């Protein structure tokens, strides 16, 4: 196979920090479904070492790197503290810059995420096609809204970040989040179109320049110092990393204002309506970017526990296979990973699942799981009469 020269530029300390113990393997979704070393964190790190030491890569290297979901389950599992996520991001950015890694159509797709007008028009077109039953059912898309009423601000205590695809397809989730925040006594304001996309998928794809542009633009949409609440785990994780991404004091300050909405709610629980006598059993699916990146999965349990009986899944936070754009690019692997999650959900014997990330929600729904955002569930339960 043809080799080309590449310099990945991964920090050599980071690269050396993996001791090849393999303890991360069972926590890696792609290893779990393939049992192949090339689809494991240990294998991917060894590949990065090979590439760095020879300065050469070939197509197999690119394929192996591209097949990582970037769930970062390996980071939580790794006793040596190997910073896998940033090593993979560095690798992808180097591949994007130095090779033809990201095809024009992929680049175009990512670009659209930052353009709310095109996204809305595109989504409406999809909604029409969907209603005319002209979309292939194997795309497994949710019911796409045709028209959506705008979100109405209610004060200036906290910001609620709205995002790209989530705002176009799942604005009702934002409305539920807003109601819960308001019930906790705070007024909510929304950013303007400059905060159209957090840039998470761009970082994962190695489109660093575009990601940094989107980060700067997003930051400019949140003046003042009110907390910035996020109800999408993937976006929250990304916005908390702006400091690292841009490395300016403004970016660090901005990142410190970012909270997953559940992190904010745990400190305002007492203001919410009283709890119920017979809480329903709800399983919690921890989105990877909440559990492995933000380490903020506990607050979801605490908030949900006020109205429900949360059940922890027995798979130690193994990824569900959504992975941002991953489920679209690797539908077979994504579905095989999801199958493990569904087995774990079945063992939990619940009627409903809560997931605090839009990507996971859509992916699990497409697999036939009854799942909603935790705050949609809370919003429902807290308004019910006891």
């Amino acid at each position, binding site marked *: *196979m043809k080799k080309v020269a590449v310099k990945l530029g991964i920090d050599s*300390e980071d690269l*050396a*920090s*993996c*001791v*090849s*113990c*393999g*303890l991360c*393997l*069972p926590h890696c979704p792609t290893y779990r479904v393939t*049992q*192949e*070393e*090339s689809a494991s964190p240990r*294998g991917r790190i*060894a*590949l990065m070492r*090979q590439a760095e030491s020879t300065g050469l*890569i*070939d197509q*197999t*290297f690119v394929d*192996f790197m591209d097949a990582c979901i970037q769930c970062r389950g390996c980071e939580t599992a*790794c*006793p*040596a*503290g*190997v910073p896998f996520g940033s090593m993979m991001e560095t690798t992808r950015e180097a591949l994007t810059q130095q090779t033809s890694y990201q095809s024009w159509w992929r680049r175009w797709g990512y670009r659209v995420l930052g353009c709310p007008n095109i996204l809305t028009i595109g989504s409406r077109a999809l909604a029409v096609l969907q209603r005319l039953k002209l979309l292939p059912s194997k795309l497994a898309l949710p019911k796409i809204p045709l028209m959506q009423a705008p979100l109405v601000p209610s004060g200036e205590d906290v910001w609620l970040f709205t995002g790209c695809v989530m705002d176009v397809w799942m604005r009702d989730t934002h409305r539920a989040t807003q109601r819960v925040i308001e019930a906790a006594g705070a007024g909510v304001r929304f950013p303007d179109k400059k905060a159209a996309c957090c840039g998470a998928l761009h970082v994962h794809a190695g489109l660093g320049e575009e990601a940094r542009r989107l980060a700067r633009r997003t930051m400019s949409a949140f003046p003042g110092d009110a907390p910035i609440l996020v109800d999408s785990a993937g976006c929250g994780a990304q916005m908390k990393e702006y400091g690292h991404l841009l490395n300016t004091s403004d970016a660090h300050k901005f990142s410190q204002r970012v909270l997953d909405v559940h992190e904010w709610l745990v400190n305002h629980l007492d203001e919410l309506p009283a709890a119920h006598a017979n809480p329903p059993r709800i399983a919690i699916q921890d989105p990877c970017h909440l559990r492995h990146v933000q380490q903020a999965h506990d607050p979801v349990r605490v908030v949900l526990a006020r109205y429900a009986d949360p059940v922890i899944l027995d798979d130690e936070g193994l990824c569900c296979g959504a992975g941002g754009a991953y489920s679209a690019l690797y539908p077979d692997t994504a579905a095989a990973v999801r199958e493990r999650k569904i087995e774990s959900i079945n063992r939990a014997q619940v009627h409903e699942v809560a997931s605090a990330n839009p990507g996971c929600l859509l992916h699990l729904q497409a697999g036939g799981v009854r799942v909603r955002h935790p705050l949609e569930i809370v919003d429902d339960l807290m308004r019910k009469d006891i």
Partner: protein
Amino acid sequence: MVPPSADKPLLDDLQTLLGDRARAEDFELGLYGKDGSVLEGRPAIVCLPINSEEVRCIVNICGDHKRPFIARGSGTGLSGGAVPVGDPVVIATAKMNRIIEVDLDNRIAWVEPGVLNLDLSTQLKGLGFHFAPDPSSQQVCSIGGNVANNSGGPHCLAYGVTSAHVAAIEVVLPDGSITVLGDLTAEPSGYDLRGLFIGSEGTMGVATKIAVRLTQNPPEVRTLLLDFSDVRDGAAAVSAIIAQGLIPAALEMMDHRAIEVVEAFVNAGYPTEADAVLLVELDGLAGGVENGVEVVRRVAEAHHVGEVRLAADEAERALLWKGRKNAFGAVARIKPDYYLHDTVVPRGKLVEVLEKVYRIADAHNLIAINVFHAGDGNLHPILAYDSREPGVLERVHAAGRAIITASIEAGGVLSGEHGIGLEKRDYMGMLFTEHDMATQDLVREAFDPEGLANPLKILPSGSRCSDSFGQHVPEGAWV
């Protein structure tokens, strides 16, 4: 990549059998060159079979081409057992990961070799059983690897190592035939070939199915963490606990540096200022366990224990164990490489040998970290280093040899549970005479006359005249 021309006909045959599960891509071969040790080799071809029949055919094809083969489980071995030397075909068992049958009446489960140790116990949890050998790597190591290395683990103090928990093994022998060693009865007749195979590190063939014995989950479990301001008190307490006639389910020790790195990973409240901790687990019927807790407490107090912490619930217990079981990996927080020994010394000599280990490390300007199965005297001195420092490997080897010498002088042995593999092969002469080793070689030859099954492992080259491979651990194998 086009394989070297010598490999082409072999690869063609293997691909005819396995399709794209026989691989020779440059980048991929590199991924099957290492295990958890510091050695590295390179396979000629990697095969990923999915059943016994495929393994049998692979071994036959290797025989036809006179090419060595080497079984690989999860690649967590710590002695280079799965490191390919001599251009072999790697037979990776990871895809053979089905639990074939669970027979609760006979308390046996038939599993494929690639089943991960902890996965089996997790699957059995609802039934009230588990697979007792629990290496610290249990979340990832394969049962085939456990069998090949006769692995142990913290709970093997009371329950015994892998060989006590395997009834029978289906094996593809090096001549390409398939057979079952051992049977499901309590007292099999004839030679115990099953026992011979367990611990043979892949040099007598490839295990393709394993009948493991299932152990009932204990009704009651208590876990204690004892901290000591002097490692000598901790070590003396170990002997004293056992001298009371108590056999804890597990009795583990960690020294100061180990505690620090482990706590940095798990945040379990390990006392980072202590010189040593003991993690003691008691299981069985409630009355006996409570009594055991009191015995341990009394002995610990007599040995100047700081705090006696009793895990309050399953979550706390799991967290303490998570710390212990991740200790080796966590060492990388100090230095990126480690070289780990596995000697066993009489319990009464623990303090003496531990002190020597620290002195040896100091003398070679290295960091020694100790985290080990204290109950059975199985030391795991870890020498932490950075392989990028020039000249450091020589110091590591010299210190390693000195540690082994000290252990053997104290009446100990070379390896408790990690196997000899490639790494400790050249130390065999420190424990065995030429004659001993030549006899062991005859046994091996009876299974593998052509010398194709995981060659160059366990026995130093030269102990058998027909050995045509290199003389030492190959140049460049140490990384």
